[in-house]
Every structure is written in structure tokens, then in C-alpha cells.
């Protein structure tokens, strides 16, 4: 379970999160919505441990431990996964090589055995198929020349392979057409289990038609301004973010 209390975060000297509180119980999917600049992506990066995000006050407790005290790779090993809004390109490194390195590193850190080559290939093929990923894509350098849809599917593929306990999806639907959104959402839904929590960050309600959340939180000016059930997202679709825009 993830518990965020009174979180204040500065980015380049500017306070972006101003006392954010959030509880995400095991097995639940929560959506984070809000206007541009309300701090949605900042929350995602802070949870993953990006350096330039400076926590000035507050706590984040993850599985009973102080998440903020861990470095980014320790967080990954403890099951925190961030599906990036803009996945990075790494020229010359085959996607398959990257996946295998990541999977085996994380498995090792968790005290599990590394997967043999045939086992790993089987594992990847099975997950890739669910996401309609062409195996040829996995031979190409990581994210280099990938379309927007390929990049996002590749993020969800990594999520499936790394078997995280906390999935943070940062605007995974941005830049995708409706078919691609559906494929990605199906991939995410396949990963919904009672022992896995998800934080789905999105600007639009559209994605939540496919990934139906247990709770919806609206961020405004660095805090949770309102929380509710899935109906809150529909309501926002109607009324827009006008009432949440910073004054």
C-alpha cells in the first residue's frame, strides 16, 4: 500500500506539489486527473525518484517503508514501475537486450533466479502477443524510430515483464489514436490483480472508459482538490477543469 502525506515538492525552485495527500490500497486502481500544470507528472517522477524533484516536506510510505529514502533502482526492485509519458531512446541497444537486462536485474534484486534465454524468450513472446507487439519490433534499438503507439505499448510490455507491485502510468494515452488506446488499456487491465496497485495519470476521461478506476482524484495547484468514484471522471468530461484551474 502507498501512503502519501502532506507532500511538498520543488522543481527548479518552484513549488509544484503543495501538501498532497493520497492513499492507494493494494489491489486498487486510482486515476489522477487535473488541468495542465496541476502537478500530475511531478507526482509520477517523485514516486520514481527523479533527481531534480526536491521533496521539501511530507512523507511517502510504500509497503511500510520510507520510499523517499530509496534510490531509483531500489524503488524499481521494490516493485515501483513508471510507464513514461516520453519513453527514452537508447541507440544501438536492442529492445530485447534492454528488456532482458532489466528483467534479470530486477529478479536478482528480489532474490529470484535469472531467467534462462529460452524461458525469457517464451515469457516475452507471450506478453508481446497480448499487446499486439510485432516480435520484429523487439530487435530494433530501444524506442529508436518507434511510433508513439509502439513506444507506449513497449512501456506496458516492460510493466508486464517486470511484474511490479505499484504501476504509475503517466499519460499513457497521450498521442494515441482510439485503437491504440484500447490495446494499451487491455494490456493494463490484464495486469490488474489483487496484489497490485495502479496510479493512472491522465488528462482525459477517455482512457478511463477502458481502465475503470476504483477512485478518481482531481489535482489542482499541487493538492488533491476532490476525490470520488469513477463517476467523477464522467462529470469532469462534462464540465471541464474550469473550476480547478489555478486562480
Amino acid at each position, binding site marked *: 500500500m502507498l501512503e502519501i502525506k502532506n507532500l511538498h515538492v520543488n522543481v527548479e525552485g518552484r513549488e509544484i506539489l503543495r501538501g498532497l495527500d493520497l492513499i492507494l490500497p493494494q489491489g486498487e486502481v486510482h486515476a489522477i486527473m487535473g488541468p495542465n500544470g496541476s502537478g500530475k507528472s511531478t507526482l509520477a517522477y517523485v514516486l*520514481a525518484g527523479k533527481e*531534480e524533484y526536491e521533496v521539501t516536506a511530507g512523507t511517502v510510505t510504500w509497503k511500510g517503508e520510507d520510499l523517499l529514502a530509496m534510490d531509483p533502482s531500489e524503488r524499481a526492485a521494490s516493485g515501483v514501475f513508471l510507464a*513514461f509519458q516520453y519513453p527514452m531512446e537508447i541507440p544501438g*541497444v536492442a529492445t530485447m537486450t534492454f528488456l532482458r*537486462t532489466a528483467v534479470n536485474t530486477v529478479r536478482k534484486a528480489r532474490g529470484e533466479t*535469472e531467467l534462462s534465454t529460452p524461458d525469457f524468450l517464451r515469457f516475452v513472446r507471450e506478453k508481446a502477443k497480448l499487446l499486439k507487439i510485432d516480435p520484429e519490433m523487439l530487435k530494433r534499438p530501444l524506442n529508436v524510430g518507434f511510433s508513439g503507439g509502439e513506444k507506449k505499448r513497449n512501456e506496458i510490455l516492460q510493466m508486464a515483464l517486470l511484474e511490479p507491485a505499484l504501476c504509475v502510468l503517466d499519460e499513457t494515452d497521450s498521442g494515441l489514436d482510439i485503437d491504440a488506446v484500447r490495446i494499451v488499456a487491455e494490456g493494463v487491465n490484464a495486469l490488474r490483480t489483487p496484489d497490485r496497485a495502479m496510479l493512472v495519470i491522465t488528462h482525459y476521461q477517455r482512457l478511463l472508459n477502458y481502465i475503470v478506476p476504483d477512485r478518481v482524484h482531481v489535482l489542482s495547484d499541487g493538492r488533491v482538490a476532490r476525490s470520488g468514484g469513477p463517476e467523477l471522471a464522467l462529470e469532469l468530461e462534462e464540465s471541464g477543469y474550469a473550476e480547478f484551474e489555478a486562480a
Partner: protein
Amino acid sequence: MPAVQETVARVKAIDVDKYKYGFFTDIESVKAPRGLNEDIVRFISAKKGEPEWLTEWRLEAYRRWLTMQEPKWANVKYPKIDFQELYYYSAPKSTEGPKSLAEVDPELLRTYERLGIPLSEQKVLAGVDGARVAVDAVFDSVSVVTTFKEELAKAGVIFTSVSEAVKTHPELVRKYLGSVVPSTDNFYATLNSAVFSDGSFVYVPPGVRCPMELSTYFRINERQTGQFERTLIIADKGAYVSYLEGCTAPMRDENQLHAAVVELVALDDAEIKYSTVQNWYPGDAAGKGGVYNFVTKRGDCRGKNSKISWTQVETGSAITWKYPSCILRGDGSRGEFYSIAISNGHQQVDSGTKMVHLGRDTSSRIISKGIAAGHSNNTYRGLVSAHRKASNARNFTNCDSLLIGDKCGAHTVPYIEAKNASATFEHEATTSKISDDQLFYCLQRGLSAEEAVALIVNGFVRDVLQQLPMEFMAETQKLIGISLEGSVG
């Protein structure tokens, strides 16, 4: 990829600042007195039992060297070298000329075992992958053993030390020695011509494809000893040979000088593939000690449709000054240069190539990947030229530099001269940095910072890695990871 995993494991297993090959072998050696004069040159020549013509050749080079100046144009800085402070000849006492394995001092065999170089033929034969490599091991100034000599001889291939070749094949040595890099070539090549110690000699007869990978392993052991090896490789008409050299030295506070000359000759339709994995001691984290690697390497595509390919992985040395080049003399000949030059700590690299197009329809290709980390400086310097008669000369050059951190430098200095209007020369260059976002992406997937850098760099140098003989690819990937340790905070 298992190699990356291994890189990672190796990087983890050793502390920063620990050069794995930095041990010293305590072995009694025979040295020439310190310093350099005509008597020392004669001493070296006499030690090797050389014929009169070679002694004279050395002396002539020595006299010319006295009139020459050290080159100053490279982008490297170092205190003036006192050439009278060095030893120019050092040999393990037990070794007077190459021997069979059974006779080699066990202490020397242990040294090579610690370096991971298999000198026992049985062991290599029993290797699981069946990869066989013949090795010439050079310890300070002498070759201590050459493996697989008999088997190579069956194919007609001569693979021996240069000192031995002077005795057994004087006509070949006399014909080709200095024919690519003349003894007048440059300050260090001339010095080498006067005092060269040992190195490998390879001759592949017409139409023969050398049945195995050949390699030389150079080790500087003695204190304040210069290593001046000389390698000569000749591929006769239609022959093919692939050759690899590796180098290491103990960790020492003072600098060691390595001034080698390598000459390659490819006759009609012949091909020589020459690979180097250079891991001389680079000095400590403060920039103290390390090898000065001032090397002249040149290949002569003397015959038509001949081909010479240089692949180098440069990770060691305090200073590298090295430009493996191709003279494309034969019509239709081809030269290639693939380079990975990594500098970390206070290392300085000024390296590149020369592609001199003399014949018609000659082509060349240059792929250079420079990686600078720490406080290091990494310069690519390359010349591509087409002679008046070199119609349809073609060159493609790609120089990529990667910076890690903000205290290092990468420079690209291309020289292009086309005296023939039909020449087509292309030059591409990029400089990039490992971005914090790329690193963070890898960290978020569980990799440590060092694992992430090793992965990204291995991706960056991939095109060149693929040019290395299979047996050495995994080893090289590990070496890249090790060379870059401590490069990210």
C-alpha cells in the same frame, strides 16, 4: 544479453581505481644499461644475434633520430621525456630466444594465466567453443613463446617473433622491414627502428587462408623500460589473415613508454584484418603514472583488390598517440578503420587514421566512436586524401563522440584532400551526451548507474564491436564496462 550481465558483475566485483592487470611479476631480468647511445643499439642487436645489415639499419636510424624533434601537433600534454633515463632492453633471464612451452619459465606462464591468456595449447584445444587462437607472448623486450607454430607451418604460415624471423627468414624480413613505415618516418618510428626489441612476424603464402586467429600479447613488466615492439605482417597474393594484439602493464607511479611500429603488406587480392585491444595501465585517479602509447601503425594495400582492415579498442594508456593507416596503392584496394577510444580519469587520446588513396577505384571506410568521461580529453584526428591518379576514390567517414559528465572533452579534427575531381568523400560527425533522462529511464528499470552507462556505451559502439573477432567481443564488452567505472557519480 549475458555479456551485459557479465559487464555488470565484473564492474561490481572490483573497486574503482583497481586496474586488474596491475600486478608485477618478480622475475630476474637481463637489462641493457640505462640510456641510449650507439653502444646500446649494438648491444640490442648483438643480444639478438642479428646480421650486419640489420645492425647497420638500426645505427642509421639512431643517427637520424638524434636530429629529429618530438612531434608537438597532437592535442596531448605531458612533461618532456628524458630518453637517457629509460632502459631500452629488458628480458627475463631465463629466456634467451623463444622456446617450446615445456621450457618456458613457469613464473612467466603464471603471469599470462593471470592475464587470462591461454599459452597451453592443450587447454586451448580443450576449449568448449573450439575457438583456437595462436599466441605470441612478448614480455618486455622479448618473445617468450609462440603457440601453434607447427600446425601453422603445415599450412605454410610463418608465425614467429621478429627476432626469430631475422634468423630463419632473413630474405623476407630484409625485403619488407621498413617498406611501409620507413626508418625515417617520424620521431617515434625512427626511435623504434634503432632499438626495436621484439614483436610478431607473420607471412601467409599465396592463396592461403590462415587456419586460425593469430594474436600477440604484449606485457611491459620492468620498471622504466620502454617497449619498442615491431610487428610485420605480409599477406601474399590471395591470402587472408586475421590478427589480434592485446596489451597490459603493471601499475606504476612513473610513466612507461611504448613506441611500437606495425607494418602490414597486402599483395594482390590479399586481406589482412588487424584488431587491437589496448589496455595499458592508464594511470591512477589523480592522473599519476600510466603508459605513453606512441605508436605508428600502417598498412600498405600494395596489390590490386587488396584489403586491410584495422579495428581498435583503446581503453588504456595515460596518453595515446596512434593513427593506424592504409596506403591504398593497388587499384581497387580497400581500407577500413573501426575504432572505439574510451578515455576516463585523466587519460588523453589523440587517435584516428589516414586513408591515402593512390590507386584507381580505391575505397575506404572510417567508423570512429570516441567516449570521454572523467577529466579526459579525446581527439579524433583523421586524414583522407586522394592522389591525382586516384580516380573514383571513395571514402565514408563517421565520427561519433559521446561525453559522460561535464569535465571531459571530445574533439574531431578531419583533414580532407582530394586532388582528383572524381573522388567522393563523405564525412559525418556527431557529439552527444548520455542524458540524465536516459540514465533515469534505465535506473527506473532497476539498473544501477554503472550498469546503465555500460549498456548505453555498448549500444553506442555496437557498429564497431561487430567488427571484432567473435572470440573477443564478449571480453571487449566487459572491458568497456570496467574502463568506465567511476564515471558517473
